[in-house]
């Protein structure tokens, strides 16, 4: 690589690499190291080897239901996140500029409402007394109030979490679709393509990159997600909505056992890495990285 290129590269790429390496990658390494300590609230580094892992592997009757929940939660949430996000993005462009903005603004709201308030609103919606919104509507129809969060815990938290992801996807996909040259779509229309065909053959292939990336991004996001579930159902009732991330939070972080928590998170670390790698493989990352036109 010639000197000029090197200089240019370091200006362009240098700062982000340095920043990310120091402030994002090193903490990850530290976290892995943490798994071999018994650090707790006092932040003392005390290495204890594999003890955390032994403790984690002792028989815990909750593990099977947690794994089961997670296995349902992640694919479902991912499907809603990507699917709904795409649906909203396409629809909002289809229904015209003004209405599109309204739609996108409504769906952007879950993202900017603070998590506690967001959850508070969902609780209001699903409150088990007759004064919760859903139950109030039911009582207008002369039905009894139902304890929604007890009976439908897992589906509800899937939806609550996935909506945030869908909101994010909507923003990204909208930007991506809007940068597709109009000529393509006009040409297709002239050729007599239906909207569905246009979506399938023009839009989707041209937004393959953001699609791939959003998937690769949201799989770990949903695997690691616990805040909303923690606030809404706390994994209840009786672990019916406890996913692995929340389980490791309960087992360790709520007690400030950082070392132990890091060890339990190790499972997630591995799963996350595998998921990301598989996504790249499926979408053909290597091919997408080829520079068309050869590059300089």
């Amino acid at each position, binding site marked *: 690589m010639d000197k000029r*290129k090197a200089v240019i590269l370091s*200006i*362009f790429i240098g700062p*982000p*690499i340095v*920043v*990310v390496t*120091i*402030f*994002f*990658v*090193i*903490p*990850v390494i530290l*976290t892995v190291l*943490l798994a071999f300590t018994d650090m707790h609230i006092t*932040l003392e580094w005390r290495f204890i080897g594999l003890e955390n892992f032994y403790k984690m592997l002792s028989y815990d009757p909750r593990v099977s239901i947690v794994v089961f929940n997670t296995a349902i939660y992640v694919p479902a949430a991912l499907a809603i996140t990507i699917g709904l996000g795409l649906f909203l993005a396409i*629809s909002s462009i289809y*229904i015209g500029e003004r209405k599109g903005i309204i739609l996108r*603004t409504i*769906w952007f*709201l*879950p993202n900017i*409402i*603070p998590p506690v*308030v967001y959850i*508070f*609103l969902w609780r209001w919606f699903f*409150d088990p007394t007759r*004064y*919760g*919104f859903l139950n109030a509507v039911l009582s207008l129809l002369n039905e009894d109030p139902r304890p929604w969060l007890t009976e439908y815990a897992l589906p509800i938290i899937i939806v609550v979490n996935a909506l945030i992801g869908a909101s994010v996807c909507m*923003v*990204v996909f*909208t*930007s*991506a679709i*809007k*940068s*597709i040259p109009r*000529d393509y779509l006009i040409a297709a229309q002239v050729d007599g393509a239906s*909207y569905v065909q246009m979506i399938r053959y023009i839009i989707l292939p*041209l937004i393959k*990159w*953001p699609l791939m*990336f959003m998937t*690769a*991004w949201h799989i770990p996001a949903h*695997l690691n997600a616990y*805040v909303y579930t923690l606030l809404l159902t706390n994994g209840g009732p009786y672990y019916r909505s406890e996913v692995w991330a929340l389980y490791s*939070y309960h087992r360790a972080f709520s007690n400030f056992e950082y070392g132990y928590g*890091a060890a339990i998170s190790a499972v*997630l670390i591995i799963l*996350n*890495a595998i998921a*990301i790698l598989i996504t*790249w493989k499926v979408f053909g*990352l290597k091919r997408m990285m080829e520079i*068309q036109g050869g590059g*300089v």
Partner: protein
Amino acid sequence: MNFGKILLYIILMLISTPIVVMVVFLLVASFSERLSYGLIPTRLTLDKWSFLWGPIPWGLKREYIWPVLLNTLLYAGGSTLVRILLVTLAGYAISRISFRGRTFVLAFQMIGRVVPGAGLLVGMYFTLYYLNLLFTIPGVILIRTAMGIPMALWIMKGFFDSIPWDLEWAAMVDGCTRLQLWRKIFIPLVKPGIAAVAVFAFMEAWEDFIYVYVLLPGETKVLSVLIQRLIATEVIDYPLLAAMSLFYTIPPLLFYLITQKYLVQVTLTGGVKR
């Protein structure tokens, strides 16, 4: 208006209803005195909004919300600018300059995603600690930026990719330097990408609570901390929470609406070949 379109509208309205209902409730709640049963708004009053013209109506009534808003704006704005800058530079390079390890650089960014949030906080604390950047504002901004760069970078690369090569060749033939090329030609063309990145950057910094709280000294004066304080006890003033939450969501919303203007479709003319 064909059947398909009607169906679409119906579906959209149905799924959007919960959100709309909840926001309307939030609005009404912010104008009520109390929530009966914790769920039903009662008497209408402007009291809860009094922080707009007076001190925040809680505790000893000594604080004002506007300095806090300013702080939060500075923090969010600063983070956004830094991130956009770094990422538009790097995104261009990864998209256009061929060098060994391009894929690796991009993939490398995702390492931070593999660790769930709670554990990462401790790692970040120690990173800042050993670098002597603990409890400083630049430290927190760097952390926030580092956490947001991966996604932003991936997004930007996608947008840079979609610009046809011919423009580049033409410009270089005309004697443009890389930097000029980047600034005058590419940036305007990837505005939608920048818009998306800006929105996320602003939002992440805006709702950041735990990093800003633990990694800065004293009781940090940003809006997210203010909201947390409202819910700290079990005995919560819901209408005040509603009012402050609405206040809290307005700047990001405005920011979002402004960036929507940048989502104008980008038209390209002349010999476009892929």
